[in-house]
């Protein structure tokens, strides 16, 4: 069941978020150049990292779907990409706010990290319309998986290309050039873990909700005799989920 362990996961997530916020505002020192404004870093960067990782995980689920033809993998891929898009919106908004405070502009078009992230976001923004455009559930899931794999491969390539570029206006966080002191690094790692937990919890909630809805529909079909054909299902971007497939283990 998708809902298994959801309660304890939710409690851990709330505790981790509270710990992360406490560290951000009461433990991490003020950065010498940006001062208090740098506190945005502890939410903006984890949101961006988790969004990008979510896109890659969505691609891995899509590979599993194409290999097994199990619709539950398609549902996992769909939910992971859907949630990553929400986190990417958060990263874009918080990044713009930080840019305005730090650089005086909401957006800087000649900065490769910002523009590449926007390109990835816009690429994935077409995922839902693609699904919605295909009515046949089987074809829809197959095409969506191919898209998820192709776009998922683009994410690390894009990341590496930006790293290799020479214009470094945007600060580096991870890797050899990072110069975060210990307390800041600890706070960042806790924030990253908290945002990761938030992502996993939200994905599990989403999967549980969709699974429950699929079960209710199956029950309605059994009681009322409605057919589950694509014509009856109507046009939707949400993957078709069989109740048998939905009953397997969660994220």
């Amino acid at each position, binding site marked *: 069941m998708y809902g298994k362990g959801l309660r304890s996961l939710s409690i851990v997530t709330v505790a981790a978020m509270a710990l992360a916020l406490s560290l951000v505002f009461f433990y991490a020192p003020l950065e010498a150049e940006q001062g208090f*404004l740098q506190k945005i870093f502890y939410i903006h960067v984890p949101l961006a990292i988790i969004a990008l990782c979510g896109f890659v995980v969505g691609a891995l689920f899509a590979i599993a779907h194409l290999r097994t033809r199990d619709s539950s993998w398609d549902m996992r891929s769909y939910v992971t990409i859907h949630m990553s898009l929400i986190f990417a919106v*958060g990263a874009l908004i918080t990044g713009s706010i930080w840019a305005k405070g730090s650089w005086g502009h909401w957006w800087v078009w000649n900065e490769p990290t910002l523009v590449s992230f926007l390109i990835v976001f816009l690429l994935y923004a077409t995922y839902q319309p693609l699904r919605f455009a295909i009515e046949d559930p089987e074809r829809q899931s197959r095409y969506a998986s191919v898209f998820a794999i192709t776009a998922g491969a683009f994410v690390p390539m894009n990341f590496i290309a930006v790293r290799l570029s020479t214009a470094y206006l945007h600060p580096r966080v991870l890797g050899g050039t990072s110069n975060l002191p210990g307390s800041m690094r600890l706070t960042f790692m806790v924030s990253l873990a908290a945002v990761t937990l938030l992502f996993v919890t939200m994905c599990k909630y989403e999967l549980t909700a969709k699974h429950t809805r699929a079960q*209710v529909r199956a029950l*309605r079909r059994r009681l009322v005799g409605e057919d589950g054909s694509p014509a009856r299902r109507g046009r939707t971007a949400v993957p078709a989920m069989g109740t048998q497939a939905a009953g397997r283990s969660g994220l």
Partner: protein
Amino acid sequence: MSAVLVLAEVPALPLNEAGKYVAAAYIVLVIIILIYVSIMAIRLSRIERELGELLELSGAPKPEPEPAALAAHQESTPA
């Protein structure tokens, strides 16, 4: 108190200016979570309504309230 003084003195941007940007960024996160919780609440109520309809269709009796909820209801009801 000393922490407030440090916050007020150290930043390159004055705290009253940097503070609004930091607050805005964290409020964005809270809003995203609140929107998500609201959507989940709407979905939950829809599923609950559908299940109620299905229960009526099946002809099954409505489920009894749980003992704890019943006790709380009796306590809150004036004698």
